[in-house]
């Protein structure tokens, strides 16, 4: 298997059962969802409504939340890029 001593996270081993090789990478899913949410919520923040701003007491909470989610999602995707799963038959399972 790969060098996995320094990543701070575990890597799944290969071939233990059919299921383990077919599981997809949760990091891609989290990263992808957060990027999409970041864009959506961020968009709401770019065009704030007066009513919404009044509720959030003048803070553009949508913009801040959107940007933070975008950043977190990006970090997850970067993590997948830098340390992809090392399982022989599943590279195309989830991308």
């Amino acid at each position, binding site marked *: 298997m790969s060098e996995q001593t320094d990543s701070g996270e575990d890597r799944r081993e290969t071939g233990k*059962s059919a299921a383990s090789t077919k599981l997809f990478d949760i990091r891609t899913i989290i990263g992808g969802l957060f990027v999409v949410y970041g864009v959506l919520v961020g968009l709401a923040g770019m065009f704030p409504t007066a009513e919404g701003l009044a509720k959030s*007491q003048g803070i553009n*909470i949508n913009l801040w939340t959107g940007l933070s989610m975008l950043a977190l999602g990006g970090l997850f995707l970067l993590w997948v890029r830098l340390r992809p799963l090392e399982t022989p038959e599943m590279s195309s399972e989830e991308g």
Partner: protein
Amino acid sequence: MHTLADGLRLSMNWMDSLILVIYFAVVLGIAFAAKRSVHTTLDFFLSGRSLPAWVTGLAFVSANLGATEILGMAANGAQYGAYTIHWYLIGAIPAMVFLGLVMMPFYYNSKVRSVPEFLLLRFSRSSHLLSSILFAVASVLIAGVNLYALAIVLQALLGWPIPVSIVVAGLFVLAYIIIGGLTSAIYNEVLQFFVIVAALVPLTVLGLVRVGGVGGLLDKVTASEGAQFLSAWGGTGFGQDNPLGANWLTITLGLGFAISFGYWTTNFAEVQRSLSAKNLSAARRTPLIAAFPKMFIPLIVVLPGVIALLVQPNIGQPGSEYDYNSAIPLLMAELLPNGVLGLAVTGLMASFMAGMAANVSSFNTVFTTDIWQAYIKPAMSDAHYLMIGRVVTAVGVLIGIGTAFIASSFSNIMNYMQTLFSFFNVPLFATFILALFWKRMTAQAGFWGLLLGTLAPVGFYSLYRVGIVEMGSDQAVNMTSSIIAFAVDVAVSVPVALATRPKPAEELVGLVYTKADANTRGELQKGDDAWYRKPALLGWGAIVLAVLCYIPFSI
């Protein structure tokens, strides 16, 4: 007129709905993909034991961070103030560390698929069947609380009446679990964890701004509730008074020891998350990794509860249209603009799915392997049990819909949850401790201890409900009945054990602490011996950090 539904009504726009729809599209996508990899019962129930520790660790927190936890601990925050952090610091961390460091090797190495199955190996069929039935009953009762929690959210969202919301919610969960089994449940829990946090952080920030920042919060709470509301130990001496109505001994023994160790070490919804890990090292690290995020969850759950009390001071009071359970939906309606609102609704729905899926999947594991396979139809094909597992899921959800109506009669669902834990988890924990650390413990003692240990707190609680016993608060009752449950279990087990014949020593290998096999570290993978993956370091680090977290609430 200002009715409950109107006051809490959340006005979602297309953006909020889109966020919600995307989430469930992804969740169902995972379920479909996971279905392709589910081939055997081991896959369906334990995810084929293949997941890395950070995934099972976050699933471990997330299984506990259900809608009940979020609504219920916020309710506790509004009702009991800073005393609520006891449920996290003394009521969770030590028990999670104990599970990881001491108990996990027994569970993982004995290759059991459920907690009662361990009792079968250690004791006999009678205590196994008893504990399985107790487990099944507890799971569907707790599943009912989860359904009710979602119904509260649906009511706020769509204005549906609670009964309709309960039924619709139940059917949705059913579809979701049957499609994907536990594999997707664990993956979704990790996803849910991040969404919930992303939703609760902005809510807390806006809430703090609303009450004038941390300084304003402290001043206002002190002015309206008294300084004690912000302390964790104030007034907990004997004969003193505090919002919790419990003294320090009841808190430490009842909550810190009996309830919390009972819940975290024998609640299969939690333990199952660890059993899905890829090896023993990862299984032990699962609750230990979970302990760190767990410590900081009060900041985004309990704190909003306290803020809700300032925003709506009559919350939970007799005659008020808001009960404690509505603390979080109330703040969402007051503070969140469209966009973040959709995120918060999604987070709550997601957290509901986490709790409900955890309960239902542990119910079907225990029913299928420990009751059906063991006593009703043994020695059938794997496909048969897989089919039964799916049928039982449906039955479990249907019963859960029924028990949701019991939960709807409680103003603070966390009070009710803890009552259930004191009935079901505490005696089981007492029996486990004896089974693990005392090789003289016998099968007969296990059975009678468990039976009477469960009946005793039920009896005590009944006395409280009919008014014969007076206590400071519902939670003080729970802590006291937990101590009673533990004490009765041990008091019954020990004499029975001494009067009956123990199992021969060779049958106890791997099942009792003094037998060396249970202490092996299991096969290690490359990197598992890195210093930051040492279970002892992670465990003791969590304990030290929990003690430090108490300091601001103790002066």
